[in-house]
């Protein structure tokens, strides 16, 4: 069995991949806004957070790489689409609507924070330390994004934001699909705890901001990205992200 398959069969690795792949793809997709953000300051902040997301993904890939004897870039770029564990929320096309882009990132940041807390209670001290650092930095994104949510809820952008929330909510709930290999009672109850934390935190901000969104746990029958059944938009983004890598695998920069 190859090192890559070992990794893909490991429950903790799959959980780590679900966070790392979310952040990798989110950083890639939100990067489209660099240079064209709604105001210069927001452009800079958004680009800074995209770089954070990519760095955070890298820190998790590096951990997995050390553990399974793989190169972090190989994990990031050389898996087939069905071996990515990200939720397809992260690659939903925003059609250059900032309301969609902001809401997408906000949902993911609220998932990543408690998920990193949970991943950081593993048996591996080195992984726990990485998670602690990533959690604190994702916390910066959270307070920043929550600030924007509250302001946009109070302003004339309210209806645009509400529309983005309503359209993204079903896909946001798919953040809680259990990744391949984690289909047991223990992981299910841990997942429920994260969902609890996520819906409490998001609902508090939504209430402050005057938004109303129905957030419910997806049914087990609904198979999505975390179990490898990705939407077309994920595959397109994945192909584009890997384009340079495929041209010259292993090239150094």
């Amino acid at each position, binding site marked *: 069995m190859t090192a890559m398959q070992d990794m893909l069969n490991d429950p903790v690795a799959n959980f780590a991949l679900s966070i790392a792949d979310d952040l990798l793809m989110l950083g890639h997709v939100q990067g489209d806004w660099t240079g064209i953000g709604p105001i210069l300051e927001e452009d800079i902040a958004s680009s800074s957070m995209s770089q954070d997301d990519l760095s955070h993904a890298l820190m998790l890939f590096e951990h997995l790489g050390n553990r399974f004897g793989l190169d972090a870039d190989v994990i990031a770029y050389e898996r087939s689409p069905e071996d990515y564990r990200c939720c397809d929320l992260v690659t939903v096309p925003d059609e*250059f609507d900032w309301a969609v882009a902001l809401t997408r990132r906000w949902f993911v940041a609220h998932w990543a924070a408690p998920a990193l807390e949970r991943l950081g209670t593993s048996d591996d001290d080195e992984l726990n330390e990485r998670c602690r650092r990533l959690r604190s930095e994702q916390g*910066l994104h959270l307070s920043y994004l929550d600030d924007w949510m509250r*302001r946009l809820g109070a302003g004339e952008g309210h209806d645009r934001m509400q529309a983005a929330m309503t359209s993204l909510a079903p896909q946001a709930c798919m953040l809680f699909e259990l990744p391949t290999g984690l289909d047991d009672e223990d992981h299910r109850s841990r997942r429920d705890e994260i969902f609890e934390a996520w819906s409490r935190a998001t609902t508090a901000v939504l209430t402050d901001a005057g938004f109303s969104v129905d957030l419910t746990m997806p049914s087990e029958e609904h198979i999505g990205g975390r179990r490898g059944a990705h939407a077309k938009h994920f595959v397109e*983004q994945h192909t584009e992200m890997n384009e340079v890598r495929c041209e010259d695998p292993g090239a150094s920069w």
Partner: protein
Amino acid sequence: MSKIRQRNFTFADELPPHADGVVRSYVVYTARKDDAPHRYAGYLNAPDIALAVSLACEHYGQDEACTGIWVHDVQEITETPCAMEKMNPQDTSDTTDCESDPAWVVFGQKRRGDIHVELASLRAADSESALSRAVARHGGGMVQIRVVPHASIHATEPGQLIWRTHDQTYRMARGYSKSVRMKWEAVRKAEDIDEYRKDDIKDHF
């Protein structure tokens, strides 16, 4: 290929950042260490001061290691004209601060074009007396003195995480220039570049 790479996209309507749509300008200062003076970092626009602090953390807070950020509305500045020569204040009539007066933060500029650096704080009844008191006490060797009401400055929380702990040297302009120079030198060393240039010169000159 994504729309951004095709350069084929249109924006949805502008998303107004604030109910009244007013964006104001703010001045940002950063401190490199906990007890270090705050140094001018730049300006930014934001709908309100709380968001200005958040934006400043993401922008100026990531330019270099940083432990604290101050932000105030640009309108809060009272300052002397920027002098050609360093100031040499002779006024000795300065009085003692009255504790019931509001507090002001004093910034100074050592040379024209230098950044403004936090020097001290003092108490004074109004901006005019704050400025003259600041010049008398701290103007020596400066070309410009600025005072800002302490109450108008919004700061990050003590101990707040601003600078990221992961390696972000690749984001630094200086890191970029170093790696580009190394690449350029590696390319320049290759003999085929010289050969190429010979042909180039032959063809074109």
